[in-house]
């Protein structure tokens, strides 16, 4: 499954990041790498972007960007 499918309070462990390019680079520069746990905190008022916690800090990320992150559920 992909990160955008997770709901608030769910945790996913990153398996892989799809695709190529700037977005992917940015994602792992920010610490989203295979094996990392991502906690989904909440969604913005219009349902997008989503707020996640990675390596102890908080990021806002659009669902279209989150769709690239393949995760396996840790506590779903």
């Amino acid at each position, binding site marked *: 499954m992909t990160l955008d499918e997770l709901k608030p309070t769910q945790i996913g462990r990153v398996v892989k990041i799809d695709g190529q390019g700037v977005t992917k680079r940015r994602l792992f520069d920010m*610490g989203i790498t*295979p094996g990392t746990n991502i906690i989904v905190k909440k969604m913005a008022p219009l349902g997008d972007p989503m707020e996640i916690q990675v390596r102890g800090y908080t990021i806002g990320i659009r669902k279209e960007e989150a769709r690239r992150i393949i995760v396996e559920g840790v506590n779903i």
Partner: protein
Amino acid sequence: MIIGLIGNPNSGKTSLYNQLTGSTSHVGNWPGVTVEKRVGKYLKDKSIEIVDLPGIYSLSPYSPEELIARTFLNQKPDAIINIVDATNLERNLYLTSQLVEHNIPMVVALNFKDITERRGEVIDISILENTFCVPFIQISATKNLSTDELMNKIKLVGSSTYSRKGHYLLNGELEHTLNDIKTKLSLLQKPTEAFHIVKVLELDKQTLKMMQFDNETLEYFKENTKNIEQKHDDEIASIVANARYEKISEILNKAITKKGKASPITDRIDKIVTNRFLAIPIFIFIMSFIFALVFADELFSIPMPGTFFQGLMEGFVEIVQVGVANLLINLNASSWALDLVVDAIIAGVGAVLSFMPQILLLFLLLSILEDTGYMARVAFIMDGLLRKIGLSGKSIVPLIMGFGCSVPAIMAARTIENENDRKLTIMLTPFISCSAKLPIWALFAAAMFSGGNWYIIPIIYFTGIIVLVFVSLGLKKTVYKGSSSTFIMEMPPYRYPNTKNTVLLLLEKSKHFVIKAGTIILSATIIIWVLQYFTPTFRVAEVESDSILAVVSNFIVPVFHPLGFARGEYGYVSIVATLTGIIAKESVVSIIGVLGPGATVVESVRMMFTNVSSLSFMVFNLLIFPCLATIGTLRQELKSKKTFWFTLLIQLVTAYLVSLVVYQIGSLIW
């Protein structure tokens, strides 16, 4: 000695820079980009020059900011200070792990010492120093703790007697691979600086080009990397990034001897502030409050600071006017000189300067809000909505500020990283009805739409917003096509705003405003004065309607016929009003008052306009070129002349077309 200051965004870099150099002054932009370049001298030792590099998360070559840092490092500065947010070590050290690969003397400043101590966190610095092989110094930039120690260390490592050899910090098997590459490179007698080795592994284009490998060697390295990629089923850049993070985790597990308890305050605040239902109402509330402070006369009978200081400024201008007038009269100055200096220059420039207190106050309040970290939340909340019109969440702040004044609004767009998004936001901002245009709406509302029709003012505001949406969508589909940048935005913990930073920033902005906008306004005021003082034959105009300005306006009048206004004997007055509105939008009302046929300005409006032509006139003034201060700011912030003139063209075309539609359709209905 040249020292570079490098670190993540939100790591307190700006605070440290201010602390060390005493200013936020920037010397223009980095060549070729719109990223501000900041260089200053260390207050306690002027021989040390500190270059503030843009906040970056990594040294990859993808954004202008990262390229600037890369280029700077290639020029081999004497030393670099890597500022690290100690409350966010893991991610911050990622950049550090890349920086240590360079042969440049370096000191790591672990910022927010006060916060980590408060949290009870204990970090074994020696472990960090031994693994990264650079000095680590705990500081607090805002509280000015240990900054002297930091600079003493930097002086030491930056001096010529000290040299540093870069090394790489990656986990596991990659280290072996890198060692192999290093051996191969030295056999080929190629440079073997640590970061070169890693870049060869990553098949970085710039590095490969520089190395000038023969085909066989190139194929060897490519094959090598491909094997690794296949083994991990991932691309090399990702594998390397992961290896870095794994190494960092390993180091931190040993170095953090006592984990701190993170404060839940940020989370608690965010539970409310980014709550699905409360977020937008709270945002509207906060913005309304700020606007009241800046633009309202009073709130619940309490006088508001914005209008108070504006009144003071106006009073000051008046005093200057009277004083200079008296002086000139005593010096027997000719009447034209009196008119030019007192009624044109001082009045004209004064009119613009008088709203400077409000611009600055707005900017101050929004900067403080930005400093706390709230604006990141705002971008997060509004992104969904703004994407629908082709912008991103980060555009919301400039657009909101535009309701007050376009000048600080356009300057606020600097925080938008994506060039296209930024340009688009800047171009759209003037369409929003700023506070200087409000007197125009109020005048027409009183003259033509009184009684139950007060809603004409909100309608004008909405017209501005709707036009903005359409222009945005139009431009996005044509001229500014292409994917926007990624959003991925850090939401830092809430922090107390650093007033020193903000005030320094404010002073810098005021200086800029006064100089840039002032020169344009001064020149334009003089030009307009000449145009309305003299006849086309350069005699002094006896009657207003004989002046060049009036003659030219009359000439243009037919162009405006389809828009409904500018008709009749006093038609030229609305043109003159619109034209002088380009100096300052407030002039529109005063020109109608001075040149209009009625005894009062309200009477003049009633005599010059119909209901429908009022609407088209208001819409035209809403959308046409903004005031000179804004035009000056547009020119400054839009680097390319082409974009600047294109913006003005769009304003002209939009103003004419929408006004036309309003009048033609309006007159069919009413």
